[in-house]
């Protein structure tokens, strides 16, 4: 019990990020800065092989991840959040844009090499089973990364066992197991250990807790909190679950059809969302208050595919507030008064005003 109490204290204390010897630009410099990141998939070509239609999976997004923070990315299927993660890891080749890791451009001449970048940035996937090689023991899977980077066999195995212990799995019981012998929660712990084996500074969690049962999800979220504290990690936490993102993130970025719709401090964004899509997402969450059920769905229809998009705002076909301006001109991501909160909506002020207004009328106007 006292152990737990101590932990609570240390959690409230300031994060211990600055001590990392790999830190280059100091605290003020963002750990990751992304500029104009873009990926289009061609889905149809004409006879000469020229693209006929494309999926605008990620369509020029800018954002930064500050040192020691957790940036949450939310959005529905097709919004490009998982593609963004794969682009950052260079598992997909970006069509354009720049990724700058702690001041160094990634993958360009004179910048950070891909191999070095992958040492500092690691990823945990959603599917805990598919992301472990079924023919390798847990220990081998975790030790693989360090071995690739030249750590000796014995030492990497020791590291694997240490990490297993850290993620709450007894090494002597689990090291020699195969993935199919573990439960989903245990496997996701292994995946986290595997990602940490390279001692990264940034961990991308792509729907890492989404497939877990709720009771197990809470355990893994606690684990993530502890590990962040212990290693001074920075997280990029991707999820479709607004409650979880709100719990874990310092800042939140909302994506819609390959673009950033809104980004801001977690509390500010949840308290006063400045994009109609964010509002819709929030009111689509099932209510947990007995007797207060949702009466109207905030949006009709499914999120469209980001194929051959029309000019103007991409949300406007589903937006209850759309006006002619929205159909003609695509809104830029612009800062709202107060700073730190950006929204890509022509009518951001009105959206925000409508929310902070305590009286309902919002429901009406949005409908």
């Amino acid at each position: 019990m006292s152990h737990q109490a101590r932990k609570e204290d240390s959690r409230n204390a300031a994060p211990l990020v600055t001590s990392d010897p790999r830190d280059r630009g100091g605290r003020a410099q963002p750990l990751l800065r992304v500029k104009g990141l873009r990926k289009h998939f061609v889905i149809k070509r004409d006879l000469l092989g020229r693209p006929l239609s494309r999926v605008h999976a990620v369509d020029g997004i800018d954002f930064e991840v500050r040192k020691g923070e957790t940036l949450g990315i939310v959005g529905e299927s097709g919004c490009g959040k998982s593609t963004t993660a794969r682009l950052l890891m260079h598992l997909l080749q970006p069509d354009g844009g720049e990724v700058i890791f702690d001041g160094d451009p990634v993958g360009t001449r004179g910048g950070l090499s891909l191999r070095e970048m992958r040492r500092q940035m690691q990823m945990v996937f959603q599917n805990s089973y598919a992301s472990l090689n079924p023919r390798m023991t847990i220990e081998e899977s975790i030790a693989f990364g360090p071995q690739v980077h030249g750590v000796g066999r014995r030492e990497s195995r020791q590291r694997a066992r240490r990490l297993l212990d850290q993620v709450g799995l007894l090494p002597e019981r689990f090291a020699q197991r195969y993935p199919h012998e573990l439960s989903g929660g245990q496997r996701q712990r292994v995946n986290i250990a595997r990602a940490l084996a390279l001692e990264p500074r940034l961990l991308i969690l792509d729907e890492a807790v989404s497939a877990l049962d709720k009771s197990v999800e809470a355990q893994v979220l606690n684990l993530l909190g502890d590990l962040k504290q212990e290693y001074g990690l920075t997280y990029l936490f991707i999820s479709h679950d607004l409650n979880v993102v709100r719990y874990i993130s310092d800042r939140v970025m909302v994506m819609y059809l390959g673009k950033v719709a809104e980004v801001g401090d977690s509390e500010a964004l949840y308290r006063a969302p400045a994009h109609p899509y964010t509002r819709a997402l929030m009111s689509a969450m099932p209510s947990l208050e007995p007797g207060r059920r949702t009466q109207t769905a905030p949006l009709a229809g499914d999120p469209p595919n980001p194929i051959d998009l029309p000019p103007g705002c991409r949300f406007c076909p589903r937006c209850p507030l759309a006006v002619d301006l929205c159909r003609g001109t695509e809104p830029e991501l612009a800062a709202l008064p107060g700073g730190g909160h950006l929204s890509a909506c022509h009518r951001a002020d009105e959206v925000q005003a409508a929310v902070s207004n305590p009286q309902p009328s919002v429901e009406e106007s949005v409908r």
Partner: protein
Amino acid sequence: MKSDVMTRTAVQTPLTASADPMVEIRDLHVHFGTPRRQVQAVNGVDLTLARGEVLTILGESGSGKSVTLRSLMRLLPERKTRLTGSVRVDGQDVLAMSRRELSRFRGRTAAMIFQEPMLAFDPVFTVGDQIAETVCRHEGVSRREGLARALELFDRVRIPSAKRRLANYPYELSGGMSQRAMIALALSCRPKLLLADEPTTALDATVQIQILLLLRELQRELGMSVIFVTHDMGVANEISDRIAVMYAGRLVETGAVDSVIAQPRHPYTLGLMHSRASGELRGQRLSAIPGAPPDMSAPPPGCAFAPRCPHADATCTQALPGMSELGDGHRAACWRLGETAS
């Protein structure tokens, strides 16, 4: 230790006083397995569903919630499954049905919707044809009437430009649309009981709420009874009149949705409520339920939740707690209910 409001009641007492329930499950056991490994998926479930009632079975993966639902239509692989107990739907004994009776029962008395709508449709026929065909087969009407009915159903599940959509192949429909089409298919023979197996789990949030609202509306219009299986408390709250929480193949708590969510009494339900991540808890540890659910090929004696339960004592690990009445049909199966009152 035990409060005196609580009275241990016989297991047979129906939850809602209803002379003619839609579903009546008594002491249902479902065991799967090969000779070498037996999985005890469901271990003595008693459940009653009144006509026109919406019940949610809430539980995690492996709790037996889907298996319970499937045994209502005998959809489990017969050769590998051992079903005991009694299952009555609309007055008929499901476990005693012949193959013919069963196929008449499926679709007409009870219909089911799934998490994956694509599995309900044959990819090489249009959705309209498939619904019309189902209507023709079950009701012996002409193809024309079948198609007319399909159109009416598509309108009813709010599929825009229904006529055009009927001519679509399943893969041409988006996620929410195919979920609606599957609901139309399930409703095609006017079932009295709709079984829903996590139909909104794979959907995006903004689509999920639409489907939940649609189901609520359809249930009201058609007066169906619904059993809805989910792992999401929010979804349960949105859809149901009553909740039955399942853990390790047994019901651990049942009651009206308001009382179970506002005042959960079983330590497992309490744990689920408290371990939810939310904005207010930011920067704090979540009070997660420790450990993992038991291996159902060797479930522990006594209360299956005891190894993870903060209130457990020696009694819990030895004897199985029965359902205790907490008032207003709210019941929980726990030895230490005295400690869990708020």
